[in-house]
C-alpha cells in the first residue's frame, strides 16, 4: 500500500466525476474540459493545468451540484468518506482536472499542485483544500493542510473542516487539535468534521476545558459541543467543570452535561447522570444525541 501513488481507484473516480459534470455543463464546455484534460495529462510543465484550473470558474459559473443517493454511494465506494455532494460546479470540474495530472514523477506532480496553491485566489484555495483526499501521494499534503488551517478565510477553513476525510486520516495530533480548536473559535458546525469523536484526545480535552474557563471568566457563552471531546477524559481535576454545566440554567447545556456523563467511565460522572433520569432515558433511546442537541 505504502508505495502506491493513489490509495484508491483514481480512474474510476475520474470517470464517475465526468458523468456528474456532464449533467451540469453545456456540450461546448464539456468538450473544452475534455480537450484541456488531455493536454493536462500529457504536458510536462504546468501551463495547461494553470490555465484550465483558473479558467474553469469562468466557464462553469457558481451553481451548486446535487447528487442523488445512488451517486453519493458510488463516490463513497471508490473513496470511503469522500463526498462531492453540494459542491459548486467549479470545484467538481477543477477536481476532475486535477485527477488528470500525470503523477509519475512525484516531485513534478507535487510542484504542479503546490504551484496552484501558491497562486490561488480564495475560491481556488477552497477548491484545492476540498480536493485534498483525491491527490496522489496523500502523505505529502499534511503540511499544506496544516497551513490551510492557519487561514482566516471562512470558505477555506470550511473546505478543510466540512465533510473532508483528509484531516482525520492524515494530520498528526497537534495539527488535528488546531483544526478542532479553530472550528470552535470560528463558530463552525463541528458536526460536519469527519472523525471528530474518534480523534478525541486528552490534550485537546484539556485545552478545551481551559478555553471554557476563559469564556466563563469573560462572561461569554461556551459551545456545548466541546464537551463531547472531554467526555472520555473526565477525571477528578476536570469534573468540577462538568458539575458546573450540569447545574446550568440552560436546558441545552444540561443536556450536553448528561451526554458527556453518559460517555464517561468516571463513577461520579455516572452518578451525576443518574440524577437526571429523563435525560438519561432520552440518551439511551437515542432521542438525545450530539447531532440533535442544538435543534
Amino acid at each position, binding site marked *: 500500500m505504502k508505495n502506491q501513488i493513489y490509495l484508491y481507484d483514481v480512474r474510476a473516480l475520474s470517470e464517475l466525476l465526468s458523468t456528474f459534470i456532464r449533467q451540469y455543463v453545456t456540450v461546448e464546455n464539456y468538450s473544452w474540459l475534455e480537450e484541456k484534460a488531455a493536454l493536462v495529462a500529457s504536458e510536462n510543465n504546468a501551463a495547461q493545468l494553470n490555465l484550465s484550473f483558473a479558467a474553469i470558474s469562468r466557464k462553469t459559473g457558481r451553481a451548486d451540484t446535487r447528487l442523488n443517493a445512488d451517486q453519493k454511494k458510488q463516490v463513497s465506494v471508490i473513496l470511503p468518506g469522500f463526498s462531492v455532494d453540494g459542491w459548486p460546479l467549479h470545484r467538481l470540474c477543477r477536481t476532475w482536472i486535477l485527477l488528470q495530472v500525470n503523477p509519475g514523477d512525484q516531485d513534478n506532480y507535487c510542484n504542479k499542485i503546490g504551484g496552484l496553491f501558491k497562486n490561488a485566489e480564495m475560491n481556488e484555495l477552497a477548491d484545492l483544500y476540498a480536493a485534498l483526499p483525491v491527490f496522489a501521494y496523500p502523505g505529502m499534503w499534511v503540511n499544506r493542510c496544516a497551513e490551510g488551517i492557519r487561514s482566516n478565510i471562512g470558505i477555506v477553513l470550511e473546505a478543510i473542516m466540512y465533510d473532508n476525510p483528509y484531516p482525520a486520516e492524515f494530520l498528526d495530533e*497537534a495539527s488535528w487539535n488546531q483544526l478542532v480548536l*479553530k472550528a470552535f473559535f470560528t463558530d463552525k458546525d463541528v458536526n460536519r468534521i469527519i472523525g471528530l469523536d474518534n480523534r478525541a484526545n486528552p490534550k485537546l480535552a484539556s485545552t478545551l476545558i*481551559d478555553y471554557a474557563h476563559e469564556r466563563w471568566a469573560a462572561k461569554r457563552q461556551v459551545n456545548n459541543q466541546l464537551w463531547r471531546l472531554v467526555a472520555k477524559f473526565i477525571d477528578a481535576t476536570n469534573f468540577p467543570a462538568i458539575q458546573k454545566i450540569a447545574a446550568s440554567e440552560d436546558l441545552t447545556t444540561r443536556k450536553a452535561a448528561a451526554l458527556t456523563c453518559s460517555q464517561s467511565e468516571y463513577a461520579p460522572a455516572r452518578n451525576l447522570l443518574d440524577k437526571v433520569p429523563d435525560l438519561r432515558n432520552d440518551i439511551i433511546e437515542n432521542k438525545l444525541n450530539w447531532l440533535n442537541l442544538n435543534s
Partner: protein
Amino acid sequence: MCCNNSLNEKEVQTRESIPVDLQSIRGMKFFDPHVHMTSRTTDDYQAMADAGVVALIEPAFWLGQPRTGPDTFRDYYSSLIGWERFRSSQFGIKHYCTIGLNSREANNEALSEQVMEMLPLFIYKEGVVGVGEIGFDDQTALEEKYYRLQLDLAKEAALPVQVHTPHRDKKKGTQRSMDIALEHGLDPYMVIIDHNNEETVKDVLDRGFWAAFTIYPFTKMGNERMVEIVKQYGTERIMINSAADWGISDPLAVPKTAALMKQRGISDADIQLVTYQNAITAFAQSGQIDEKDFVMVQTIDQSERFEGNTVLRGGQQPRIDTSSIIIS
C-alpha cells in the same frame, strides 16, 4: 495580531450601549503600544489624534495573506520604518514599531530562514523599540524554533520583546512563552506579554513580566473587564492597547477605556499609568523613545496661520469636512 472569530449574534444583541463621551478625558495623552496602522485608514489616524493618542507602536504582524517570498517581508518591514511612519506623522502621531517574524508565518521554514537573515538589518533602525510581535500561534515546533532564535536576537540587541500569546490554548501557551524567555536568560522586565486575560494575568505579573491587555471587541478583552482587572491588580506593569488591525477592532480602544475607567472611579494617575506611562517605561528600555518627540509631530490647529502663512506646517494633512455631501 488579531483573530477571526465570527460574531456570535446573541452576544452582540445583548450588549448594552453607552454613548461614547470622551469629554471627560480631554487633555489626557495616550500611548497605544500595539496597533496595526498599515491596516487602518486616515480617518482612524485623525480620530486617534483627536482623542489624545500622541504616539503608538506598530508591531510587525501577519497581514492576513501569507507571504510567499522574502521580498514581501522586506517591503513590509521597510514600510513600518518608512511610509507608515511618515503617514502617522502627518496626523501628529509619533510612530514607533517592533520588528519580528510573526508566529503564523514562522511555520514556513524555508522562508523563515531567509527572514531571520534579514531581521538584523531592521531591528537596529531608528525608532524600532523592540522585537515583536513574536511567540506562539498554533504552538508548533517551528514556531518555537523561531521564537527562541528571535529571543536571542533581542537579547543581543538589548531590545524589549513584544510577545503575542495564542488565542487557542492561551493559558498553556502564555506559560510556555514565559518559560522559554526565562530559559534564554531574558530579564522579564524586558518582556511584554500581550493579549492577557483574567486567566493569565496573575501568573504574568507574579513572574515579573509586563502584562499588556488588548481591548478588542468580541474576541479579546472588553473594557469593562479591563476596569475590573485594574481594580483587582492595580497598575504596576499593566498596559492596555487596541491591537486594531484588519479585523473588527477599535483604534480608539485606549482613550475609550480611559474614559470608562474615569467614569468607574479610577484615579487620573492610575489611568495615566496604564494608558500611557507604563508602555513608555517598558519600551523606552530600547533607548528609542523620547517623549519630547511626541510634541514635535503634534497636530496644530489648522485654522491658525503660521507666520502669517496659511500653508500647513510640516506637511500636515488638511482636514476634510466629513459632514458635507460635497467632496471638493
